[in-house]
């Protein structure tokens, strides 16, 4: 890519992450490099265990031992993410990068009201005025289409889709530059998934944040993302625009992934059986 462009919002260079296991180090992310522009949606696909979540966690600086970043750099809007420490790191979190995790069931503290969890978040970032907190929480609730009067409810009172929306509302609270979504819809059924993503899509247009979207549903990704990266065994084997990836997949693994999706409507390409035995 030789075009002259503004510098990317996020640039990940040669990122390596290892897990310390009883048998020694296990490399989960292997020299992954990619960039993400402002107001762009980058999809990461790949099968289970290919290192997608690990990448996401590394970018959000959510690692705990036994995960260790063993190489590479992460730059977000000019900040060296890996160099952040202590209070600076705490402040940076959520203000610059927020995350939406896979499990809608477990992403909210079951013992606190939604309001308290919003308040927590604002207070952690220096907004202490009660009225302001209430005002902004209500605003965010409206944004994701949930009546603000339900702020007083506990998480278990919400359906899975609503909980996921609550998390998205929280993710938007501080207008971060980047939202990382790690399989935000796998626990939901297709209709709800569709509703949710349409909403995110609209919000993004409205608010202009970037999204790192992780899933293993390629079809979904092709609908939702501006660019797609395919991960295999910790490495990023291919990236590009959806059309290009669909029409001319370069890497054999990408091709295999496509072939494994039975099309709903009459096939554009005849599905070829994948006959080789899987590991």
């Amino acid at each position, binding site marked *: 890519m030789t075009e002259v462009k503004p510098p990317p919002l996020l640039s990940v260079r040669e990122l390596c992450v290892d897990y310390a296991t009883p048998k020694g180090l296990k490399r989960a992310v292997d020299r992954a490099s990619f960039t993400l522009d402002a107001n762009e949606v980058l999809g990461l696909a790949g099968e289970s265990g290919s290192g997608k979540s690990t990448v996401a966690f590394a970018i959000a600086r959510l690692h705990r031992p036994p995960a260790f970043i063993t190489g590479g750099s992460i730059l977000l809007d000019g900040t060296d993410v890996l160099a952040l420490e202590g209070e600076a790191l705490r402040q940076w979190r*959520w203000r610059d990068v927020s995350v939406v*995790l896979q499990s809608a069931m477990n992403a909210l503290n079951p013992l606190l009201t939604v309001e308290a969890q919003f308040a927590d978040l604002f207070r952690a970032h220096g907004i202490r005025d009660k009225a302001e907190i209430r005002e902004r929480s209500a605003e965010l609730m409206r944004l994701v289409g949930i009546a603000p009067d339900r702020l007083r409810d506990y998480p*278990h009172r919400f359906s899975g889709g609503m909980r996921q929306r609550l998390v998205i509302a929280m993710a938007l609270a501080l207008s971060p530059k980047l939202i990382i979504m790690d399989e935000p819809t796998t626990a939901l059924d297709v209709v709800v998934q569709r509703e949710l993503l349409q909403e995110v899509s609209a919000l993004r247009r409205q608010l202009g944040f970037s999204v790192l979207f992780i899933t293993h549903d390629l079809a979904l990704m092709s609908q939702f993302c501006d660019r797609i990266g395919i991960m295999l065994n910790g490495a990023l084997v291919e990236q590009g625009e959806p059309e290009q990836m669909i029409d001319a997949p370069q890497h054999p693994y990408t091709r295999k992934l496509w072939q494994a999706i039975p099309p709903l409507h009459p096939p554009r390409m005849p599905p070829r059986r994948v006959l080789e035995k899987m590991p």
Partner: protein
Amino acid sequence: MVFLLRRLGFYVAAFLFAATFNFLIPRLMPGNPIDTMFAQAGTALPPESLDALKATFGFLDAPLPVQYLHYLGSVFTWDLGLSVKFYPLTVNQVLLRALPWTLLLVMTSSLTAFAIGSLAGARAAWRRGGTFDSVGAPGALMLQAVPPLVTSLLALSLFSISLKWLPTGFAWDPMLDLTWSWASVSSVLIHAVLPVATMALAQIGGYLVTMRNSMINLLGEDYITLGQAKGLSDRRLRLVYAAYNALLPALTSFAMSLGAVFGGSLVTEVVFNYPGLGYTLYEGITSRDYPLIQGQLLIMTLAMLSANFVADTLYILVDPRLRRA
């Protein structure tokens, strides 16, 4: 509420069960309990004296079912009759005299142990594999393996007999009349120090490990990760997000362990000559005071049930998921 009602049913059933059990124990044992009881009294009593005594204590010579009904009646009116050992006190009076002391021991020691153990457990789990964890967790386990018997004996001989820092027995200075004066209160406190400390020591380990394990399980939960991603302070994350949630399993074990603590207080009370339920029970056992033993077991069961009830209620208060209308 539904939950509580269901529990209430259970409490009644459990209590009935315990009461019946209570009734059966002395009757299933070999030998005639009443004769054994008075044989204990020492010198040979002429049969007339014996019969007169039996009548005084209200021992029925009736078929079992009749005795049982009579007994159930007395249980539900909580009229447990006269204590043999502490005659002329009624069983109620004996129990009432001892209950506050045991409650004092059990409650303070349990709460102390629970607070310390849980906080330490939370800390150990938070700094997984850190120094505190690697020393604290196995250390707590070792502590659990030390019989309260051994600790109380050691504490007594060290602090009371050798160093003479603390009293060797009684719940308060016997020469004081108990009032709400500072002298009385401080006397009670000083006399409670060793019993409470040894009882607490026996429990800390359990709470520490429970808390640590449930906390570790929780730390993998998404909402903890999310809380962290939200940039919450460590303290808030640890206490409100992790420890608070981990408290639920700890709470159950707290209620369950109260039974053991009640039992454990027996040893402590005997060693420290502390006038609580445990000691009274011991006394009742050695002198075969059946009415008293029955009353003891009943009241301990009741105490256990109340502890469970409190735990259930707390559980509901803490966990909104159970707070259905």
